[in-house]
C-alpha cells in the first residue's frame, strides 16, 4: 500500500480481523448442524446396534427386551406407506393440476385456496391428531385403527405433496402446452398427455419426500391409534402401532434394555427413511429435465 496512512492501515487490519471472525462464525453455524447430526447417528448406532437382528425384525413386542421385536410396528409402517401413496398422490396431484392448469387466479376463492394450503402446511402435527381423534376415532366410531392413522397422515402431508407437485407442473414450459393446443388437443389431453408425463419426476420426488416425512411422524398417531402393546400383525381396521410410536414407547420404559431396543428400532427407521430419500434423489437426478 503506497501512501497509506497509519490510520488507514489499522482500520484495514481491524476490518480483516472482523471479516475473519465473521467467517469463523459462519463455519460454526454450518458445523453445529452437521456435528449434531453426526453425533446423533453415531450415538444411536453405538447404542442400538447390538439389538439389530432378526429378533427385532421378526418377533412381536414382549415384556422381556431380549426377545422383543418390532415386527407389528414395521409391518404397520409399511402398510401405512402403501395407503399413503394410494391416498396422497391422486388427491395431491389432482389439486395441483387444478390450481396450476384450471384455476382462474383472479378469483378470490382460488387465491384463498392457495393461502389455505400454505397454512395447512404449518399446522402442528398434533392438531391433525386432534382432528383424527374427534372425527375418525370417536366421531365416526372408527376406533384407533390403521385406516384412521393412514387418513390422518394423508391430510398431514397433502399440503407438501400439493406444493411440490405444483412446482413440478409449473416447471413444464408453456411452449409444450401451446404446441399441443395448436394440434387441436383439448385441455385435458394437453394436461394428461403432455404436462403430466413431463412433470412425473418432480412429482415422484416430492411425493416420496412427503412419504418419508409421514412415516417418521409420531404425534398424530399417538392420538389416533397406536396402542402400547400390539403383539399381532396389523390389519386395515385393527389396532396398530407404527415404528416411530414403538420407538417412543420403548424410550419411555424405565429399563435400560428397552432404551437400547429403541435405539435399534431407530436404526431400522432411519434406514427405511434414508432409502426413501436416496430413491427420491436418484429419481430427480436420473429423470428430471432442465427446460
Amino acid at each position, binding site marked *: 500500500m503506497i501512501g497509506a496512512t497509519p490510520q488507514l492501515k489499522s482500520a484495514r487490519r481491524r476490518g480483516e480481523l472482523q*471479516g475473519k471472525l465473521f467467517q469463523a462464525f459462519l463455519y460454526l453455524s454450518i458445523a453445529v*448442524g452437521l456435528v449434531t447430526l453426526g453425533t446423533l447417528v453415531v450415538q444411536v448406532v453405538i447404542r442400538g446396534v447390538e439389538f439389530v437382528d432378526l429378533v427385532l425384525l421378526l418377533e412381536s413386542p414382549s415384556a422381556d427386551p431380549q426377545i422383543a421385536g418390532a415386527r407389528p410396528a414395521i409391518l404397520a409402517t409399511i402398510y401405512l406407506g402403501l395407503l399413503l401413496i394410494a391416498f396422497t398422490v391422486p388427491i395431491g396431484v389432482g389439486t395441483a393440476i387444478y390450481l396450476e392448469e384450471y384455476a382462474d387466479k383472479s378469483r378470490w376463492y382460488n387465491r384463498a385456496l392457495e393461502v389455505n394450503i400454505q397454512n395447512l402446511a404449518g399446522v*402442528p402435527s*398434533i392438531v391433525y391428531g386432534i382432528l383424527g381423534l*374427534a372425527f375418525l376415532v370417536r366421531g365416526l366410531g372408527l376406533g384407533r385403527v390403521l385406516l384412521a392413522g393412514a387418513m390422518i397422515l394423508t391430510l398431514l402431508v397433502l399440503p407438501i405433496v400439493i406444493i411440490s407437485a405444483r412446482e413440478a407442473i409449473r416447471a413444464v414450459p408453456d411452449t409444450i402446452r401451446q404446441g399441443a393446443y395448436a394440434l387441436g388437443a383439448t385441455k385435458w389431453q394437453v394436461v394428461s398427455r403432455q404436462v403430466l408425463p413431463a412433470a412425473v419426476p418432480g412429482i415422484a420426488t416430492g411425493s416420496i419426500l412427503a412419504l418419508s416425512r409421514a412415516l417418521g411422524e409420531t404425534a398424530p398417531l399417538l392420538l389416533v391409534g397406536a396402542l402400547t402393546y400390539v403383539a399381532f400383525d396389523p390389519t386395515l381396521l385393527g389396532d396398530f402401532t407404527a415404528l416411530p410410536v414403538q420407538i417412543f414407547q420403548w424410550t419411555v420404559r424405565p429399563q435400560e434394555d428397552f432404551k437400547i431396543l429403541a*435405539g435399534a428400532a431407530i436404526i431400522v427407521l432411519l434406514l427405511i427413511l434414508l432409502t426413501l430419500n436416496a430413491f427420491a434423489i436418484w429419481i430427480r437426478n436420473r429423470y428430471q429435465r432442465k427446460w
Partner: protein
Amino acid sequence: MATRDLLIGAEPVVRLRARRRRWSEDVIKGVLALCALLSVATTVGIVIALFQPAFEFFREVSIVDFLTGTEWTPLFDPQSFGVLPLIVGTISVTLWAAIVCIPFGLGAAIYLSEYARGRTRKILKPALEVLAGVPTVVYGYFALTFVTPLFRDIGLRVEIQNALAAGIVMGVMLIPTVASISEDAMSAVPRDLRDGAYALGSTRLQVATRIVVPSAISGIIASFVLAISRAVGETMIVLLAAGQLPNLTLDPSETIETMTAFIAATGQGDVPTGSIEYMTIFAVGATLFVMTLVMNLFSIRLVRRFREVYE
C-alpha cells in the same frame, strides 16, 4: 386497452370456438376441483373439531380463569384449569430453540448464499437438509439419552427431563428451516446491489451484513417466525425430553410440560368422551392452533412481500 377495443370491433374471420361443449372436460375439471376442496374441508374440519368442544369447555370453565390461572391439574382433584404453566413451558422451550436456530440458521444461510462456492454449496445444502428429515421422535430420544446426560457430565444441574436439552436439540433441528428460507430471500437480492457495494470498497462482511441481510430482511424474519411456530407446535421432543409436569417456571433445568406434550399425553389415554378432562385436549389444542396460525399467516405475508419486491 387499445388492442382489446380493436378486437371487439372486428368480425372474426374464423370461429375458433369448439362447435360443441365437451362435457367430459367439465367433469374432469369438477373432479380436480373436488380434490382441491378436500384441503378446504380439512381446515373446516380442524376448526370444528377444535372449537366446538373448546366452546363447551369454556361454558364450564371461564376463559379468564383458563388464560390467567397458574395451576394446571385437570386430571386430579382439586381440578384447576389455568393454562399458564403449559404456555410458559412452551415459551421456555421455544426460547432455547430460538437462541440456537436463529443465529446459526442465519449464519448458515449467509454462508451458503454469500460465501460458499458452487461445489461446497452443492454438498453442504442437502447435508444440512437431512437434519430436517430426521423424525422428531429420534431427536427426542437423542435429547433424553445423550444431551441431558452430557449436560450432567459437564456439571450442569438439570433434571432427567428438562426444558434446556429439549429446546437446544429442537433449535438444531430448526436450523435448516431458518437457513433455507433465509437463503432463498438472500438469493433473490439482485447482484447489482452487491456489485455496487463492492465497487465502493466494501468488504465481504460489509456486503453481507449491510446490503444483503437488510435487503432480504422480510424473508429472514419470515423464516424466524416460521421456525418459532414450528417450535411451539413440536410434540415428540418435548414429550420425551422436557417432561409432563406442568410447572410455571422459565428455569430451563426443571421438568416442565408444554401444550403439545399435554395434548399427546392426555389424548393417548382413555379419557371418556365428553368429560371435562376430554375437552381440555381441545381447549389447549385451540389455543395452540390460534398461536401457530397467527405466526404462519404473518410469515406467509412476509415471504410474499420479498417475492414481490425482487421478482
